[in-house]
């Protein structure tokens, strides 16, 4: 395959990833809310896609898909403020995941858990900063436990998905 058509395929696949991540954000809003436990607790389904892009292509691509997903989702389904929370979570999450992946000693599932927990930490921090109410920190322990549980599930899902996707991408490079 020529370099040019490899690039075309990459751009197409990244655009597709953004679309799938956006659909997953929307599906997540339709799921039964667990926010009577702690506000903002959720599965983090779009992270399946972000982790796959991170492992298939790299940090730049993963960060791009993640941030474009947040911006488009906030424009279509929610509001700029919700988008800002999403962006804060996504930015710290992708930074932590990229760093841990770079060390080379952590599994994808652990990277996913760290990404989920750091996402929640960033959002609680921003929430405390915006509302100027430190009492919100009291939700942090539950959100971290939620992050571990959902990060584990998402990590396993991403691992299974990536095993199948890897063949698809490998064939392109030859």
């Amino acid at each position, binding site marked *: 395959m020529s370099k040019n058509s490899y690039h075309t395929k990459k751009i197409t696949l990244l655009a597709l990833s953004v679309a799938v991540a956006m659909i997953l954000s929307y599906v*997540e*809003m*339709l*799921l039964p*809310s*667990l*926010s*009577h436990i702690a*506000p*903002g*607790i*959720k599965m983090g389904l779009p992270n399946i896609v972000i982790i796959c892009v991170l492992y298939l292509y790299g940090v730049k691509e993963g960060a791009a898909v993640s941030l474009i997903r947040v911006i488009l989702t906030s424009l279509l*389904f*929610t*509001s700029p*403020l*919700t988008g800002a*929370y999403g962006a804060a979570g996504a930015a710290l999450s992708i930074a932590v995941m990229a760093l841990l992946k770079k060390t*080379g*000693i*952590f*599994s994808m*599932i*652990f990277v996913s*858990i760290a990404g989920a*927990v750091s996402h929640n930490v960033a959002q609680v921090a921003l*929430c405390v900063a*915006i*509302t*100027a*109410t430190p*009492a*919100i920190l*009291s*939700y*942090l*322990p*539950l959100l*971290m*436990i939620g992050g*571990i549980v959902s990060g584990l599930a998402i990590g396993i899902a991403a691992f299974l998905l990536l095993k199948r996707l890897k063949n698809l991408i490998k064939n392109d490079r030859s």
Partner: protein
Amino acid sequence: MELQTKKAKKKLWWLEPLIVVFVLILSLACYFLFVHNTKEGSSIKIEAAGRVIAEYSLRQDRLILIEKQGDRYSVREISAPYSTSDFKENYNLISIGNGTVRVIEADCPARGSTRCTNQGERSHSGESIICLEHNLVITILGGEEGELDLVSK
């Protein structure tokens, strides 16, 4: 790359579970030591942008309407048959009943788990309901504030 890291992975197999279990135990400990509370609250405090705008007792049932216009919040009580079309834009309707508080109506665009109306009923002191979009935090206070109904500003 996978081959290079395989050795390191085998040696450090305990690292990941250790970190996860450590963080899990730490979170659980923090939760049960500092957060978990089964004491029923006696009043609520409504904060907007970090400033207390109203306090109400939990002992008396009522509906509290908060309307946000720009940076200003207006707080008033309304009675049962209401129509949300009468409210000004950017409203939250808080219901106090049987010693619990919940947000029953809000016109913010948030959906899913961040939406304040999805956060359910709260009754224990220290718990809170957060409406990000309108920058409101409703916190339940314990202690013996009693029947004091303080509406300031």
